[in-house]
């Protein structure tokens, strides 16, 4: 497994199914950042995202034999992560730990940069946090489809498989999510122009 770069995802998971644990480590290395980026956009906090990604890899370890090579490995691992993230959001909703203000843009207190420290990087960070909040304010089924398409850049077919939703519905959801997002981001761009 020293030159494991030549192995595809499918080959790695098959090797792992045969007991090669180095193949598992390689899969973790390949997917950990993609998964945390996806889950973070979904749940909004890095600590929780990291826990969910760890849970995803633990599941991968325990349920490795459930993988069938007819599907892409990426589709399978994103499905696990997506389901765990949704479960986490449901738990959070039940616990009511997140207040309504976390979901909306309007009531959130942002650290607006002061004039002296305002450089391009700070503005980018500010815009990033605004974009993240705009994503969070979308309904969960719009949010998931949008993240998978426009951040993770997966194909419509892959998203359809991951979310187990017909292709036409996925296209419609992504379209509506984009329209909603641009509406929410209009105010961000206006604010940004004002700051500059």
């Amino acid at each position, binding site marked *: 497994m020293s030159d494991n770069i030549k192995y595809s995802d499918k080959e790695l998971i098959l090797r792992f199914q045969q007991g090669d644990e180095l193949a598992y480590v390689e899969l973790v290395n390949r997917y950990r950042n993609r998964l945390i980026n996806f889950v973070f956009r979904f749940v909004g906090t890095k600590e929780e995202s990291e826990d969910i990604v760890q849970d995803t890899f633990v599941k991968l370890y325990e349920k490795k034999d459930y993988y069938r090579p007819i599907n892409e490995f990426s589709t399978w691992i994103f499905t696990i992560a997506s389901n765990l993230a949704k479960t986490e959001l449901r738990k959070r909703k039940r616990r009511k730990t997140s207040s309504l203000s976390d979901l909306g843009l309007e009531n959130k207190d942002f650290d607006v940069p002061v004039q002296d420290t305002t450089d391009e990087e700070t503005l*980018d960070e500010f815009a*990033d946090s605004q974009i*993240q909040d705009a994503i969070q304010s979308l309904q969960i089924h719009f949010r998931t489809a949008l993240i998978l398409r426009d951040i993770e850049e997966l194909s419509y077919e892959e998203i359809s498989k991951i979310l187990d939703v017909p292709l036409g519905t996925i296209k419609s959801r992504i379209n509506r999510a984009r329209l909603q997002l641009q509406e929410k*981001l209009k105010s961000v761009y206006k604010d940004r122009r004002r700051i500059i």
Partner: protein
Amino acid sequence: MNCYEFQDKVSAYIEKELTLSDVNRFENHISSCKVCDSTFSSVRLAIANLQRTKRVRVSKGFNDRLLQRLKNEKLNSINRIQHIGSGKNFFGYQPKYAFASILLVGLIIFLSYEVFPDVQTREPIQLSTQRDLNGSLQAPNNFRTQNQANLSVENSEEDSLQIPELTKENSAKSNSRDFPRKIKLVNDNKK
């Protein structure tokens, strides 16, 4: 194309999934509608911004923590397997609890046979009802014919399964013969 159609097809246009005629209609619309033109630019900007957002990465020591977790999970599963395979288990129960459960179930079955009488020896409800019905058509005791009196004695001594036939036949005969008199007697008694 109108504004609603534009909204439906904006992503398809960006993804280059529209037919040539739809592309022309789409472009004609945004060149003539300022609102849709602005929306179109905003959607493209939003997508570009999503793709440009800073990517989140796992923190240092992620793999170490994961491997530690897996070790713990493995230990837990080994402990579970050892517990199951140690022979101190009887279908998931400890032997003493399994034995106590079996004893309790046996005791309940035994008591249910002892406490409640055997249902097969009991006279069926249907038969007694039938007898009551026949009896209600009979005259009071002091006006009974000898035949009926003998029959009722016989009935009480006979096996319960034979009673309905005898009762039916005999009471039908006597009832048909004595019916007008019985009606009269019943009416007299009421008075």
